């Protein structure tokens, strides 16, 4: 039996201090440099994005996504677009597949612009560029324990398939996972003025660099992918963290490769961008990561076109998104399985969240809810007919701090926006998190193992997970647990003739 050698280094120290920097190798930092890269946003885009962030708008002001009907000429497209008040900023317009992302400063209300465009006969659909939120609720640790992997029978599952292989690529579309240890000089607002601050970044010590592909950033810049939020790194840990290495914790598919795709910005991304363009002040520190539909859809398509076999999307929002749905269908049609978190707003109205709500109409994409350590629905985990599977997501009300999900993640006191003005992102510790965000990577990890085991069709991966899920809650499929709790070992073991 494969027994992961996790905790050995970590546990004792974590108990003592609850704050530990993981890593046996000191990252080799490139010389601090002013970034030689181009930022992904212009000043006006940063202003719009930060306005959405600070005012908690569900969309990026002034941005609409438009799909024209087949055969519509460029001239007719221009005529249709002329319905929007004011000029379209051609320099900031871009095509994402066959969808036009149009930006205008004259029409800040994208709901109105999209509605006007939808009335044009040349337009198949139009929508605001909605901003999805990361599905996480952080907590502070007292000690760490990976009960979640025992719950889904990982120890015995690894006997059958020890961590997948490097041929399988998993795309984590999130706040990014730092791909290079380096320091960059960014301008930052420090209260009274701007200061050039050297910001160090380090690659997570518990995922071998050889397994981390360069990835791509869709929201911050065209340089190396950097995680300035921590969310993406934590999720990547659940799927891919090294196992049996006497360091940190373990991950489900520890032999697979990671494709980090940054489609979500966090507080520090916006703080840097704002400062780059000389905009003083701080963005709202209470907000969590924002993921524009345009970036998410672009990342999904990029993943499908660049060898990913599994995508994890731990984000969502209450508005439908045609561009995301089309991107999901594109990815699945190219043989990519997608795991999507169902949302954390059960106690805040339980409004159906997208893209997870699209899962039932896509064979090969799965919506994932969360359970706590007692196999009961986590208090925050959303319910509904669109819920297909549940996985461990942690529940602090079900087992306290021991009942959340721990992975090696960025040491968040280093960049806590309430206390830090000069952040660093090069230290790691055993990070607690709960949320459907944390549940979805369990499904993505299992999908990675299944792909490696020989089930290469996304629809079949979904069918296998449902077939072998442990039926909890009301017998049969229900709105709280979907088809049940994933069982990695049973799913990997498949069927014999009689049993």
């Amino acid at each position, binding site marked *: 039996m494969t027994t992961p050698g996790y905790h050995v280094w970590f546990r004792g120290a974590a108990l003592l201090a609850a704050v530990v920097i993981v890593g046996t190798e000191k990252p080799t930092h490139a010389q601090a440099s002013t970034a030689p890269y181009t930022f992904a946003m212009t000043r006006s885009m940063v202003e719009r994005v930060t306005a959405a962030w600070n005012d908690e708008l569900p969309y990026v002001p002034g941005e609409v996504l438009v799909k024209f009907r087949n055969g519509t000429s460029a001239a007719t497209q221009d005529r249709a677009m002329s319905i929007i008040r004011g000029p379209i900023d051609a320099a900031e317009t871009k095509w994402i597949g066959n969808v036009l992302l149009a930006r205008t400063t004259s029409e800040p209300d994208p709901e109105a612009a999209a509605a006007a465009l939808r009335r044009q006969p040349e337009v198949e659909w139009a929508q605001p560029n909605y901003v999805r939120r990361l599905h996480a609720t952080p907590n502070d640790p007292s000690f760490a324990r990976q009960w979640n992997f025992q719950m889904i029978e990982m120890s*015995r599952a690894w*006997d*059958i398939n020890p961590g997948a292989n490097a041929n399988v690529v998993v795309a984590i579309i999130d706040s990014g996972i730092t791909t290079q240890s380096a320091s960059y000089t960014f301008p930052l607002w420090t209260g009274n003025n701007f200061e050039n601050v050297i910001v160090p970044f380090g690659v997570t010590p518990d995922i071998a660099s050889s397994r981390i592909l360069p990835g791509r950033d869709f929201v911050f810049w065209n340089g190396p992918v950097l995680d300035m939020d921590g969310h993406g790194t934590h999720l990547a840990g659940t799927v891919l963290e090294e196992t049996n290495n006497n360091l940190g914790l373990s991950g489900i598919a520890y032999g697979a490769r990671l494709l980090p795709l940054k489609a979500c910005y966090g507080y520090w991304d916006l703080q840097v961008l704002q400062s780059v363009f000389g905009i003083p002040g701080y963005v709202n520190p209470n907000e969590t990561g924002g993921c524009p539909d345009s970036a998410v859809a672009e990342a999904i398509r990029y993943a499908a076109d660049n060898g990913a076999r599994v995508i994890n999307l731990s984000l969502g929002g209450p508005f439908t998104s045609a561009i995301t749905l089309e991107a999901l269908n594109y990815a699945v049609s190219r043989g990519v399985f997608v795991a999507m978190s169902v949302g954390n707003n059960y106690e805040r109205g339980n409004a159906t969240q997208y893209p997870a709500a699209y899962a039932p109409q896509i064979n090969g994409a799965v919506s994932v809810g969360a359970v706590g350590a007692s196999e009961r629905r986590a208090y925050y985990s959303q319910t509904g007919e669109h819920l297909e599977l549940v996985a461990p997501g942690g529940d602090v009300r079900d087992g306290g701090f021991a009942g959340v999900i721990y992975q090696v993640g960025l040491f968040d006191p280093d960049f806590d926006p309430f206390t830090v003005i000069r952040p660093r992102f090069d230290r790691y510790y055993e990070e607690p998190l709960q949320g459907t965000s944390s549940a979805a990577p369990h499904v993505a990890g299992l999908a990675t193992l299944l792909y490696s*085991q*020989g*089930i*290469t*069709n996304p*629809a*079949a991966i979904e*069918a*296998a997970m449902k*077939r072998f899920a442990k039926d909890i809650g009301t017998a049969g499929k229900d709105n709280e647990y979907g088809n049940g709790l994933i069982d990695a070992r049973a799913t*990997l*073991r*498949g*069927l*014999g*003739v*009689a*049993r």
Partner: protein
Amino acid sequence: MRPSRLFVITAYAMAVVTLPTTAGAQNSMDVRGYFVAGSTWLTAADSFEAVADTNRTSNIGGGGAVTIWKSVFVDVAVQRMAIEGQRVFVDQGTVYPLNIPLQVTMIPFDVAAGWRTPGRVSAYGAVGVSRISYTERSDFAADDEDVDDSGTGLLLLGGADVTIWKFVSIGGEVRYRHVDGPLGETGVSAVFGERSIGGVAASLRVSVGF
């Protein structure tokens, strides 16, 4: 058929095979033992093709027969069949092999009564019961996950042989077994709706008798 009844029949059949008899004067061999080897085509074809790429397996075994009255005989036989493959997942008719080795062993125990034509070249047919012991083993299985089960069902057999030298005859026979048992509840057999662990066995038969 309940096992206790099967034992009674079996014991009776064994007794008549092994005890001396004066009946059956029309045949050159009133008591015979035989060896068979051949191939079996399993009824649960889709299930076995999914795990082993074939529903055909070899069979080997032996038995005995005794003529109890005129041309009427009782036959008792045991065979062994084994097939190897791997565990799979099946979705929408597509089979996904999982590289987990699997071995199925079936041991039919047949008891039949029938009629045989007289002469050096003889044809025979019989009807009876077959009890098939079914075991399924696969890697990574827990103790309660392997299968040890059995089923009892119909047996039809027929064949022909020719005496080639004194007490030795050679021929061919076919056995058809329809035995519902361990299949069809879970596993790929449930996916394909197949319940029978029986099949058609065609064998070469070499007999020695008196």
